[in-house]
């Protein structure tokens, strides 16, 4: 199956709100006299998934796994190297300016660092209402009303709208970010490491490194390691019976807040290798407790190991 063909076929039929196919994002490293590309950081190296309407997909991974790059690429905050993404069957990467403007209203992102993403010189009312203004929603009076309602929805007082970001605590700023994201009634929210206290009946791509948090909010979880999804399954199933050795190790070392629980931990040795020069074959093999020579030769595909559960391991 060539990527070209996939790009043409808009897969609307199965009802996916978001579908991502073979997403690749390399960051070139320039060097030498002529500033030519001497190497690539293979941040995202062939990622595919879909999210149905009303579903929350948790995308989990450690630093350097590429999870945030996936989120940013889907938002077209950075251009993809190759691959495709569709929002309700419409290509995100091929969208022209006007179409993209519309999509950006439908997909909102909430960032990890709420302070870094809020303009310190704008009042909270202006921040939350900015999207409404940009997209020409309602009159000034109507917009004010919507902003007050949104602030109440996320648990802040409507009268706080005149205040500025620095007057709020980290948690409150996070909520301001959520109110801003909700303002345009988006179809999909991409949440990058948020501290989400409120759940709304929305479709989420939830990007995080904390399994315990991801598990609470997600219907399905995809686990990333060095640019690739290594396992994907319904949340409970993934926690109960992980099949990929990385997922198994990841779950085994999550500190459990119960001193009476004693369990076997799999503490992985070493660190995540550089995405500039990932290991041959299986990317995880250098830290894998069960890797064989075969793993260095052949990259394991993501295959269905039990109903609804996919793992990229020869021995899963």
């Amino acid at each position, binding site marked *: 199956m060539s990527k070209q063909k996939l790009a043409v076929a808009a897969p609307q039929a199965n009802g996916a709100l978001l579908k991502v196919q073979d997403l690749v994002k390399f960051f070139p490293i320039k060097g030498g006299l002529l500033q030519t590309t001497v190497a690539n950081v293979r941040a995202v190296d062939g990622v595919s998934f879909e999210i149905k309407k009303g579903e929350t997909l948790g995308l989990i991974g450690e630093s350097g796994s590429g999870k945030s790059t996936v989120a940013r690429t889907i938002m077209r905050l950075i251009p993809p190297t190759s691959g495709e993404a569709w929002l309700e069957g419409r290509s995100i990467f091929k969208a022209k300016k006007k179409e993209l403007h519309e999509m950006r209203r439908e997909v909102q992102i909430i960032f990890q660092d709420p302070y870094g993403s809020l303009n310190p010189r704008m009042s909270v009312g202006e921040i939350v209402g900015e999207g409404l203004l940009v997209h020409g929603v309602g009159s000034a009076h109507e917009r004010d009303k919507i902003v007050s309602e949104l602030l109440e929805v996320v648990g802040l007082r409507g009268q706080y709208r005149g205040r500025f970001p620095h007057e709020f*605590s980290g948690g409150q700023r996070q909520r301001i970010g959520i109110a801003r994201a909700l303002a345009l009634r988006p179809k999909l929210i991409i949440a990058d490491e948020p501290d989400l206290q409120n759940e709304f009946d929305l479709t989420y791509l939830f990007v995080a490194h904390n399994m*315990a948090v991801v*598990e609470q909010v997600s219907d399905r979880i995809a686990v990333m390691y060095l640019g690739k999804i290594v396992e994907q399954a319904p949340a409970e199933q993934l926690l109960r019976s992980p099949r990929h050795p990385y997922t198994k190790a990841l779950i085994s070392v999550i500190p*459990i*807040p119960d*001193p009476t*629980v004693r369990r076997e931990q799999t503490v*992985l*040795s070493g660190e*995540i290798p550089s995405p500039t020069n990932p290991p041959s074959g299986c990317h995880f093999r250098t830290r894998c407790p069960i890797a064989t020579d075969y793993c260095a030769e052949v990259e394991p595909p993501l295959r269905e190991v039990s109903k609804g559960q996919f793992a990229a391991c020869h021995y899963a």
Partner: protein
Amino acid sequence: MSDLLRVEDLHTQFHVHGGTVKAVDGVNLTIPAKATVGLVGESGSGKSITALSIMRLLEKNGRITQGHVFFHGQDLVGLPDEQMQEIRGNDISMIFQEPMTALNPVFTVGDQIAEAVRLHQKVDHEAGLNRAVEMLRLVGISDPKRRAGQYPHELSGGMRQRVMIAMALSTSPELLIADEPTTALDVTIQAQILKLMRNLKGEFGSAILLITHDLGVVAEMCDSVAVMYAGRIVEQAPTEELFASPKHPYTQGLLASIPRLGKKQERLHVITGSVPNPLAVPPGCAFRPRCPVKAPRSDRDIPGLKPNGSTAEHLVACWQYE
């Protein structure tokens, strides 16, 4: 009782624009020899300032205004600087969340560990360097000779954390204060560092004061736990006891609010409201505005930390048990 460290009624204040912040407001805490004691609480509760007060490493605008820090029965508060310098790094070491705060970027990590050893153990630089390489090997750094010649920026976050632990333990301190040592690390690297700390504890026999906001880490690492809120310890108990029957409404809220793996909670319990403004802490119990119990007297008087649990070691500061 062989208490290694006993903090008594410690008060630390900061003069800031707009007033005085009582960051530590009457802390009592004991750490027995060779024990691991967890200190938990939200950011701003005074955990780190408690640690820095014990180490006497406060910023210029901060001052211990009252109380004692007994180490082996000797009060560190008011000890002359030279004597404190002797104890710091030698008998009590500290590691931080961000290793770059403790590591000097312009010296190799080997030189820095060697310097710590040389200063405190009066050996020459070469003996110090040998010790540095030995320590780097002990904390699980492969090819320690080569790594000793590298600068902090050449190492990954997990590796820097190991270097800082190596430096802190190079003088075999009796007490190690670890302030959020794994918070900035990924979970698989956190697991490596926690395993390392457990192993080294066996090897060196140091007591550890582990400051964290992660109750999972506490459950795995600590013999006992102290819970801090608005500058005071509100509860202290052996770890299993605290998790099994928390007494203070704040501890109860904390434990109910942790996401637990494999247990879908309808909605995470959240303690409503936020930590009081440090410039305007309410009278009486500082937790009262957020407290579901609001015991009588808590609006006027600050409750003392007393044994109100099932064992003598379980201390709680709440009027509802009086």
